[in-house]
């Protein structure tokens, strides 16, 4: 059951999807410049789910290990943004962003740094667009590279304590020429969601005016 306070209305959901979509489209344009190939994006999906369910949504599709670049954000509302892809794609992504000029040893050497940098560009681009459109500033932590599966990336432990409801946003992306695919995911807890809802209301009022609803 989702408490009524945080259930998003049709226009609020539309507004959030739009904002995320614009953020991710801009991020994809940045990634396009880094890898030199088109980055295909899916339409964003937005759900309020348990943390466990969010982990399962990723875990169901990806049986092998995952790599994620994680940045937490805080400000008017706070949450966590993740760029996730199969571990098997990790070196290919590094090769793509470094332009195939490195030896295999150099690629391995650079992997961590290149992943952190790529994640930083993409996640910052999304979050900065969201912050600008909602007219609130967000601060972001330094990107962290994590390895694991859906459960470890979403920090689910066995005690069941961390199984709160979260707003789970995700978008698939793919660089077909490089056989790279992944997800951009964002998690926000309920207090953040309640604030986000108010900011979405303000955003809607700004873009369409109060008179037309």
């Amino acid at each position, binding site marked *: 059951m989702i408490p009524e306070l945080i259930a998003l209305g*049709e*226009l609020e959901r*539309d*507004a959030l*999807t*739009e904002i995320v*979509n*614009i*953020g991710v*489209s*801009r991020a*994809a*344009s940045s990634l*396009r410049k880094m890898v030199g190939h*088109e*980055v295909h*994006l899916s*339409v964003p999906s937005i759900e309020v789910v348990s943390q466990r369910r969010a982990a399962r949504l990723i875990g169901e599709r990806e049986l092998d290990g995952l790599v994620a670049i994680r940045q937490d954000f805080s400000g008017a509302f706070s949450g966590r943004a993740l760029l996730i892809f199969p571990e098997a794609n990790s070196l290919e992504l590094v090769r793509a962003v470094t332009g195939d000029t490195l030896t295999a040893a150099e690629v391995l050497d650079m992997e961590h740094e290149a992943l952190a940098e790529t994640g930083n560009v993409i996640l910052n681009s999304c979050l900065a*667009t969201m912050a600008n*459109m909602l007219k609130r500033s967000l601060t972001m932590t330094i990107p962290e590279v994590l390895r694991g599966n859906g459960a470890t990336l979403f920090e689910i432990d066995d005690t069941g304590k961390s199984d709160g409801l979260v707003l789970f946003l995700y978008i698939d992306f793919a660089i077909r020429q490089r056989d790279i695919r992944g997800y951009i995911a964002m998690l926000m807890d309920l207090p953040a969601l309640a604030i986000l809802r108010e900011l979405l209301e303000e955003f*809607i009022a700004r*873009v*369409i*005016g109060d008179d*037309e609803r």
Partner: protein
Amino acid sequence: MSVKVLIVDDSKLARIVAAKALAELQPGWSKVEAGSATQAHDLLAGESVDIALIDFNMPEKDGLELAGELRAQFPVMPIAIITANIQDEVIARARGIGATFVPKPVTAEGLQGFISGAALRLRSGS
């Protein structure tokens, strides 16, 4: 001359925003809305439109695919693709089908160039 604009976007909010920008520029023009490529085709089977404003990132069929189909059907119709996705390949595909790029979020300012050009083309064509 009465001009009818087709707005295609899966987001209701985005359609409202586009319609508002359009009304600011051309208050006399009318609009019809579709929430998907399929809806757009259904609508066009029953009525004709002069201009199309199409969102790029939509489920099922994306806006460039729809624009390509409309281009085949209506060789001279002014068509704009609305997107924040400014990747070279996306721009090249839009150019290839003779569609204009309009940045998202849509504002009257961002839409102005396309609308003025379209108005001119429609006047000279009629």
